[in-house]
Protein backbone atom coordinates (compact mmCIF):
# COMPACT_ATOMS: atom_id res chain seq x y z
CA UNK A 1 0.00 0.00 0.00
CA UNK A 2 1.28 3.45 -0.77
CA UNK A 3 2.32 5.40 2.26
CA UNK A 4 0.47 8.52 3.26
CA UNK A 5 1.79 11.83 2.06
CA UNK A 6 1.05 15.45 2.74
CA UNK A 7 2.05 17.47 -0.24
CA UNK A 8 1.87 21.01 1.04
CA UNK A 9 3.81 22.37 3.97
CA UNK A 10 4.76 26.02 3.74
CA UNK A 11 8.42 26.58 3.36
CA UNK A 12 8.73 30.17 4.54
CA UNK A 13 8.97 29.28 8.20
CA UNK A 14 12.04 29.22 10.36
CA UNK A 15 13.97 26.07 10.87
CA UNK A 16 12.70 25.22 14.33
CA UNK A 17 9.02 25.37 13.44
CA UNK A 18 9.68 23.39 10.26
CA UNK A 19 11.39 20.75 12.35
CA UNK A 20 8.44 20.57 14.75
CA UNK A 21 6.06 20.33 11.77
CA UNK A 22 8.08 17.45 10.37
CA UNK A 23 8.09 15.66 13.66
CA UNK A 24 4.33 16.07 14.01
CA UNK A 25 3.81 14.74 10.48
CA UNK A 26 6.04 11.75 11.14
CA UNK A 27 4.27 11.07 14.43
CA UNK A 28 0.89 11.12 12.68
CA UNK A 29 2.04 8.59 10.12
CA UNK A 30 2.90 10.51 6.98
CA UNK A 31 5.69 8.88 4.98
CA UNK A 32 6.39 11.83 2.73
CA UNK A 33 5.88 15.57 2.86
CA UNK A 34 6.61 18.30 0.36
CA UNK A 35 7.86 21.74 1.28
CA UNK A 36 5.92 24.23 -0.76
CA UNK A 37 7.50 27.35 -2.16
CA UNK A 38 4.82 29.72 -3.46
CA UNK A 39 5.62 32.20 -6.20
CA UNK A 40 3.01 34.87 -6.91
CA UNK A 41 3.47 36.69 -10.15
CA UNK A 42 1.31 39.63 -9.22
CA UNK A 43 4.12 40.99 -7.12
CA UNK A 44 6.93 42.41 -9.09
CA UNK A 45 10.28 40.85 -9.66
CA UNK A 46 9.71 37.28 -8.68
CA UNK A 47 12.51 34.92 -9.42
CA UNK A 48 12.51 31.20 -9.14
CA UNK A 49 15.25 30.41 -6.72
CA UNK A 50 16.88 27.06 -6.38
CA UNK A 51 15.06 24.82 -3.93
CA UNK A 52 16.67 24.44 -0.55
CA UNK A 53 17.87 20.91 -0.27
CA UNK A 54 16.14 19.12 2.59
CA UNK A 55 19.33 17.42 3.67
CA UNK A 56 20.85 20.82 4.39
CA UNK A 57 17.89 22.03 6.39
CA UNK A 58 17.34 18.96 8.51
CA UNK A 59 20.39 16.99 9.53
CA UNK A 60 18.29 14.17 10.95
CA UNK A 61 14.80 13.36 9.74
CA UNK A 62 12.32 11.86 12.19
CA UNK A 63 11.16 8.29 11.77
CA UNK A 64 7.59 7.69 10.64
CA UNK A 65 5.50 6.14 13.36
CA UNK A 66 4.51 2.61 12.47
CA UNK A 67 7.44 1.98 10.15
CA UNK A 68 11.15 2.08 10.57
CA UNK A 69 11.89 4.45 7.72
CA UNK A 70 12.59 8.12 7.92
CA UNK A 71 10.15 10.62 6.57
CA UNK A 72 10.82 11.70 3.00
CA UNK A 73 10.98 15.41 2.32
CA UNK A 74 10.39 16.67 -1.21
CA UNK A 75 10.45 20.14 -2.69
CA UNK A 76 7.50 21.67 -4.45
CA UNK A 77 6.91 24.85 -6.35
CA UNK A 78 3.51 26.52 -6.67
CA UNK A 79 2.96 29.20 -9.27
CA UNK A 80 0.05 31.52 -8.70
CA UNK A 81 -0.93 32.62 -12.19
CA UNK A 82 -3.45 35.31 -12.95
CA UNK A 83 -2.25 36.19 -16.44
CA UNK A 84 -1.37 34.00 -19.44
CA UNK A 85 2.07 35.59 -19.73
CA UNK A 86 3.02 34.08 -16.39
CA UNK A 87 2.84 30.62 -17.89
CA UNK A 88 5.74 31.35 -20.19
CA UNK A 89 8.06 30.60 -17.36
CA UNK A 90 6.92 27.01 -17.35
CA UNK A 91 7.49 26.59 -21.05
CA UNK A 92 11.01 27.94 -20.94
CA UNK A 93 13.59 25.48 -19.80
CA UNK A 94 14.61 27.40 -16.75
CA UNK A 95 17.23 25.42 -14.93
CA UNK A 96 15.83 26.15 -11.49
CA UNK A 97 12.38 24.82 -12.21
CA UNK A 98 13.71 21.40 -13.06
CA UNK A 99 15.24 21.08 -9.63
CA UNK A 100 11.87 20.93 -7.88
CA UNK A 101 10.27 17.54 -7.36
CA UNK A 102 6.68 18.64 -7.82
CA UNK A 103 5.34 21.59 -9.77
CA UNK A 104 1.89 22.96 -9.07
CA UNK A 105 -0.07 25.78 -10.61
CA UNK A 106 -2.81 27.84 -9.04
CA UNK A 107 -4.99 29.28 -11.80
CA UNK A 108 -7.11 32.28 -11.01
CA UNK A 109 -9.27 32.51 -14.10
CA UNK A 110 -11.21 30.02 -16.19
CA UNK A 111 -8.99 30.50 -19.21
CA UNK A 112 -5.91 29.75 -17.16
CA UNK A 113 -7.58 26.72 -15.62
CA UNK A 114 -8.24 25.45 -19.12
CA UNK A 115 -4.64 26.11 -20.17
CA UNK A 116 -3.30 24.43 -17.03
CA UNK A 117 -5.37 21.32 -17.55
CA UNK A 118 -4.69 20.91 -21.23
CA UNK A 119 -1.24 22.16 -22.12
CA UNK A 120 0.89 23.08 -19.13
CA UNK A 121 3.50 20.66 -17.89
CA UNK A 122 2.57 20.49 -14.22
CA UNK A 123 1.75 17.80 -11.67
CA UNK A 124 -0.92 19.50 -9.58
CA UNK A 125 -3.63 22.05 -10.19
CA UNK A 126 -4.59 23.80 -6.97
CA UNK A 127 -8.23 24.57 -6.34
CA UNK A 128 -8.97 27.71 -4.43
CA UNK A 129 -10.62 27.04 -1.09
CA UNK A 130 -10.43 30.44 0.55
CA UNK A 131 -12.93 32.24 -1.63
CA UNK A 132 -15.87 31.53 -3.87
CA UNK A 133 -14.71 30.16 -7.19
CA UNK A 134 -14.87 32.85 -9.87
CA UNK A 135 -15.60 30.27 -12.52
CA UNK A 136 -17.45 27.02 -12.90
CA UNK A 137 -15.66 23.81 -13.72
CA UNK A 138 -16.38 22.39 -17.10
CA UNK A 139 -16.06 18.79 -18.09
CA UNK A 140 -13.70 18.91 -21.13
CA UNK A 141 -10.62 20.44 -19.44
CA UNK A 142 -11.13 18.34 -16.31
CA UNK A 143 -11.35 15.12 -18.33
CA UNK A 144 -8.27 16.08 -20.30
CA UNK A 145 -6.37 16.71 -17.09
CA UNK A 146 -7.40 13.30 -15.76
CA UNK A 147 -6.18 11.68 -18.96
CA UNK A 148 -2.86 13.49 -18.75
CA UNK A 149 -2.29 12.39 -15.17
CA UNK A 150 -2.71 15.76 -13.51
CA UNK A 151 -4.21 15.84 -10.03
CA UNK A 152 -6.41 18.44 -8.39
CA UNK A 153 -5.40 19.57 -4.95
CA UNK A 154 -7.64 20.67 -2.10
CA UNK A 155 -6.37 22.20 1.10
CA UNK A 156 -8.02 21.58 4.45
CA UNK A 157 -6.24 23.78 6.98
CA UNK A 158 -8.20 26.94 6.10
CA UNK A 159 -11.30 24.95 7.10
CA UNK A 160 -9.83 24.43 10.55
CA UNK A 161 -9.08 28.08 11.09
CA UNK A 162 -12.27 29.83 10.05
CA UNK A 163 -15.89 28.88 9.58
CA UNK A 164 -16.39 30.95 6.41
CA UNK A 165 -13.45 29.18 4.82
CA UNK A 166 -15.05 25.91 5.85
CA UNK A 167 -18.09 26.71 3.76
CA UNK A 168 -16.02 27.70 0.73
CA UNK A 169 -13.84 24.62 1.03
CA UNK A 170 -16.77 22.25 1.12
CA UNK A 171 -18.72 24.02 -1.61
CA UNK A 172 -15.76 24.22 -3.98
CA UNK A 173 -14.90 20.61 -3.27
CA UNK A 174 -18.43 19.44 -3.95
CA UNK A 175 -18.61 21.31 -7.26
CA UNK A 176 -15.29 19.77 -8.28
CA UNK A 177 -16.50 16.29 -7.34
CA UNK A 178 -19.59 16.66 -9.49
CA UNK A 179 -17.45 17.19 -12.56
CA UNK A 180 -14.53 14.88 -11.97
CA UNK A 181 -16.49 12.12 -10.16
CA UNK A 182 -13.88 11.77 -7.47
CA UNK A 183 -10.93 10.86 -9.66
CA UNK A 184 -7.51 12.42 -9.41
CA UNK A 185 -8.00 14.25 -6.12
CA UNK A 186 -5.28 15.00 -3.62
CA UNK A 187 -6.11 16.48 -0.22
CA UNK A 188 -3.32 18.20 1.65
CA UNK A 189 -2.91 20.61 4.47
CA UNK A 190 -1.22 23.94 4.29
CA UNK A 191 -0.50 23.69 7.97
CA UNK A 192 1.70 26.34 9.47
CA UNK A 193 1.65 24.84 12.94
CA UNK A 194 1.81 21.24 14.10
CA UNK A 195 -1.67 21.64 15.59
CA UNK A 196 -3.15 22.28 12.18
CA UNK A 197 -2.03 18.93 10.87
CA UNK A 198 -4.48 16.06 10.94
CA UNK A 199 -3.83 12.37 10.74
CA UNK A 200 -4.18 10.60 7.40
CA UNK A 201 -7.34 8.71 8.34
CA UNK A 202 -8.93 11.93 9.58
CA UNK A 203 -8.17 13.55 6.24
CA UNK A 204 -9.60 10.53 4.42
CA UNK A 205 -12.79 10.99 6.43
CA UNK A 206 -12.87 14.62 5.30
CA UNK A 207 -12.86 13.28 1.77
CA UNK A 208 -16.08 11.47 2.59
CA UNK A 209 -17.54 14.82 3.59
CA UNK A 210 -16.57 16.27 0.21
CA UNK A 211 -18.48 13.57 -1.59
CA UNK A 212 -15.83 10.99 -2.35
CA UNK A 213 -16.42 7.30 -1.86
CA UNK A 214 -14.44 5.48 0.83
CA UNK A 215 -11.82 4.05 -1.47
CA UNK A 216 -11.43 7.32 -3.36
CA UNK A 217 -11.04 9.23 -0.11
CA UNK A 218 -8.28 6.95 1.10
CA UNK A 219 -6.61 7.12 -2.30
CA UNK A 220 -6.65 10.92 -2.09
CA UNK A 221 -4.18 10.72 0.77
CA UNK A 222 -2.05 7.82 -0.32
CA UNK A 223 -2.18 6.46 -3.84
CA UNK A 224 -2.84 9.70 -5.67
CA UNK A 225 -0.05 11.47 -3.76
CA UNK A 226 2.36 8.77 -4.76
CA UNK A 227 1.21 9.06 -8.37
CA UNK A 228 1.84 12.80 -8.26
CA UNK A 229 5.33 12.27 -6.94
CA UNK A 230 6.04 9.76 -9.68
CA UNK A 231 4.60 12.13 -12.28
CA UNK A 232 7.06 14.74 -11.07
CA UNK A 233 9.87 12.26 -11.37
CA UNK A 234 8.99 11.44 -14.94
CA UNK A 235 9.40 15.10 -15.75
CA UNK A 236 12.97 14.95 -14.58
CA UNK A 237 13.75 12.02 -16.80
CA UNK A 238 13.73 11.94 -20.59
CA UNK A 239 11.40 14.23 -22.48
CA UNK A 240 10.94 11.88 -25.39
CA UNK A 241 12.21 8.63 -26.74
CA UNK A 242 13.30 7.85 -30.27
CA UNK A 243 13.78 4.27 -31.17
CA UNK A 244 14.75 2.68 -34.47
CA UNK A 245 13.26 -0.49 -35.89
CA UNK A 246 14.97 -2.48 -38.53
CA UNK A 247 12.64 -2.95 -41.41
CA UNK A 248 13.26 -5.93 -43.70
CA UNK A 249 13.70 -4.95 -47.36
CA UNK A 250 13.45 -7.22 -50.37
CA UNK A 251 16.39 -6.61 -52.73
CA UNK A 252 14.79 -7.53 -56.13
CA UNK A 253 11.98 -5.02 -56.06
CA UNK A 254 14.09 -2.01 -55.34
CA UNK A 255 14.46 -0.72 -58.91
CA UNK A 256 10.71 -0.28 -59.57
CA UNK A 257 9.86 3.31 -58.69
CA UNK A 258 6.47 2.49 -57.21
CA UNK A 259 5.37 4.37 -54.10
CA UNK A 260 5.35 2.25 -50.95
CA UNK A 261 1.55 1.89 -50.74
CA UNK A 262 1.27 0.44 -54.23
CA UNK A 263 4.26 -1.77 -53.60
CA UNK A 264 2.52 -3.46 -50.71
CA UNK A 265 -0.54 -4.26 -52.86
CA UNK A 266 1.45 -5.77 -55.69
CA UNK A 267 3.54 -7.87 -53.34
CA UNK A 268 0.60 -9.91 -52.11
Amino acid at each position, binding site marked *: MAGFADLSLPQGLDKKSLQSLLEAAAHLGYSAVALNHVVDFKEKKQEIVKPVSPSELFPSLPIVQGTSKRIKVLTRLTLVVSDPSHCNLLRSTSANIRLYDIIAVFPKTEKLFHIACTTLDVDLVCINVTEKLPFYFRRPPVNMAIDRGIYFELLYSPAIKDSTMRRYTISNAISLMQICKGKNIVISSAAERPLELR*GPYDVAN*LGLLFGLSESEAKAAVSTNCRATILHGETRKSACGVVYTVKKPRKVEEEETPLPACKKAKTQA
Partner: protein
Amino acid sequence: MEPPAVPAATFERRVVRSGAEHHYLRVRLELPDGGARPNVAQFKQLVVSALRELHGEVGAALPVDVLTYEEKTLSAILRVISSGLVKLWSALTLLGFYQNRRCAFRVLQVKPCGGWTASPVCQFSL
Protein backbone atom coordinates in the same frame (compact mmCIF):
# COMPACT_ATOMS: atom_id res chain seq x y z
CA MET B 1 -11.68 -54.25 3.71
CA GLU B 2 -13.07 -50.80 3.44
CA PRO B 3 -11.91 -48.16 5.84
CA PRO B 4 -14.60 -46.97 8.21
CA ALA B 5 -16.68 -44.19 6.72
CA VAL B 6 -15.69 -40.85 8.02
CA PRO B 7 -18.61 -38.58 8.68
CA ALA B 8 -18.52 -35.51 6.50
CA ALA B 9 -17.30 -32.40 8.26
CA THR B 10 -20.10 -30.10 9.16
CA PHE B 11 -19.94 -26.46 9.86
CA GLU B 12 -22.42 -23.80 10.50
CA ARG B 13 -22.09 -20.34 9.09
CA ARG B 14 -23.77 -17.44 10.80
CA VAL B 15 -24.06 -14.18 8.97
CA VAL B 16 -24.83 -11.09 11.00
CA ARG B 17 -26.58 -8.75 8.66
CA SER B 18 -27.41 -6.03 11.10
CA GLY B 19 -23.83 -4.88 11.43
CA ALA B 20 -22.48 -2.89 14.29
CA GLU B 21 -24.94 -0.63 15.98
CA HIS B 22 -22.42 1.65 17.59
CA HIS B 23 -18.95 2.79 16.73
CA TYR B 24 -16.42 3.55 19.41
CA LEU B 25 -13.76 6.24 18.96
CA ARG B 26 -10.71 6.61 21.11
CA VAL B 27 -9.73 10.27 20.89
CA ARG B 28 -7.25 12.59 22.51
CA LEU B 29 -7.50 16.36 22.71
CA GLU B 30 -4.20 18.13 22.20
CA LEU B 31 -4.10 21.35 24.12
CA PRO B 32 -0.49 22.41 24.30
CA ASP B 33 -0.73 25.61 26.27
CA GLY B 34 -0.70 25.26 30.03
CA GLY B 35 -4.21 26.52 30.64
CA ALA B 36 -7.06 24.87 32.51
CA ARG B 37 -8.03 21.44 31.29
CA PRO B 38 -11.69 20.75 30.54
CA ASN B 39 -13.56 18.40 32.84
CA VAL B 40 -15.87 15.74 31.48
CA ALA B 41 -18.91 18.03 31.17
CA GLN B 42 -16.93 20.66 29.30
CA PHE B 43 -15.44 17.97 27.09
CA LYS B 44 -18.90 16.71 26.14
CA GLN B 45 -19.98 20.27 25.50
CA LEU B 46 -16.95 20.75 23.26
CA VAL B 47 -17.85 17.69 21.21
CA VAL B 48 -21.45 18.81 20.84
CA SER B 49 -20.42 22.34 19.87
CA ALA B 50 -18.04 20.94 17.25
CA LEU B 51 -20.93 18.94 15.81
CA ARG B 52 -23.18 21.99 15.85
CA GLU B 53 -20.57 24.15 14.10
CA LEU B 54 -20.14 21.75 11.25
CA HIS B 55 -23.46 19.92 10.95
CA GLY B 56 -25.92 22.30 12.60
CA GLU B 57 -28.70 21.41 14.97
CA VAL B 58 -29.19 17.98 13.42
CA GLY B 59 -25.55 17.19 14.05
CA ALA B 60 -25.68 18.49 17.61
CA ALA B 61 -28.65 16.22 18.26
CA LEU B 62 -26.61 13.13 17.34
CA PRO B 63 -26.51 10.74 20.29
CA VAL B 64 -22.88 10.80 21.40
CA ASP B 65 -21.77 9.35 24.74
CA VAL B 66 -18.49 9.92 26.51
CA LEU B 67 -17.79 6.50 27.96
CA THR B 68 -14.48 7.22 29.67
CA TYR B 69 -12.55 10.41 30.16
CA GLU B 70 -9.15 11.06 31.66
CA GLU B 71 -8.53 14.67 32.53
CA LYS B 72 -4.81 14.23 32.94
CA THR B 73 -4.16 12.99 29.41
CA LEU B 74 -7.32 14.52 27.89
CA SER B 75 -8.16 11.22 26.25
CA ALA B 76 -11.63 9.76 25.99
CA ILE B 77 -13.67 6.99 24.45
CA LEU B 78 -16.76 8.19 22.60
CA ARG B 79 -19.66 6.10 21.42
CA VAL B 80 -21.85 7.11 18.52
CA ILE B 81 -24.41 5.31 16.39
CA SER B 82 -22.89 3.97 13.23
CA SER B 83 -24.81 6.23 10.89
CA GLY B 84 -23.36 9.24 12.64
CA LEU B 85 -19.72 8.17 12.55
CA VAL B 86 -18.70 10.25 9.53
CA LYS B 87 -20.40 13.35 10.96
CA LEU B 88 -18.77 13.03 14.34
CA TRP B 89 -15.33 12.20 12.97
CA SER B 90 -15.35 15.09 10.51
CA ALA B 91 -16.60 17.49 13.18
CA LEU B 92 -13.76 16.49 15.50
CA THR B 93 -11.23 16.77 12.68
CA LEU B 94 -12.23 20.28 11.72
CA LEU B 95 -12.32 21.64 15.25
CA GLY B 96 -9.57 24.17 15.72
CA PHE B 97 -10.25 26.18 18.84
CA TYR B 98 -11.33 25.57 22.41
CA GLN B 99 -12.11 28.77 24.31
CA ASN B 100 -9.97 30.71 21.85
CA ARG B 101 -7.04 28.41 22.45
CA ARG B 102 -5.65 26.39 19.58
CA CYS B 103 -6.32 22.69 19.91
CA ALA B 104 -6.50 19.56 17.83
CA PHE B 105 -8.41 16.33 18.17
CA ARG B 106 -6.38 13.23 17.43
CA VAL B 107 -8.55 10.22 16.64
CA LEU B 108 -6.49 7.24 17.74
CA GLN B 109 -8.75 4.27 17.13
CA VAL B 110 -12.13 3.55 15.63
CA LYS B 111 -13.90 0.28 16.38
CA PRO B 112 -17.28 -1.02 15.21
CA CYS B 113 -18.01 -2.67 18.57
CA GLY B 114 -16.48 -4.86 21.18
CA GLY B 115 -12.87 -5.16 22.28
CA TRP B 116 -9.93 -3.01 21.35
CA THR B 117 -7.53 -5.73 20.28
CA ALA B 118 -7.97 -5.44 16.55
CA SER B 119 -8.91 -2.36 14.66
CA PRO B 120 -9.78 -2.36 10.99
CA VAL B 121 -8.99 1.30 10.61
CA CYS B 122 -5.90 2.43 12.39
CA GLN B 123 -3.88 2.01 15.50
CA PHE B 124 -1.64 4.64 16.93
CA SER B 125 0.25 4.58 20.14
CA LEU B 126 -0.42 7.38 22.55
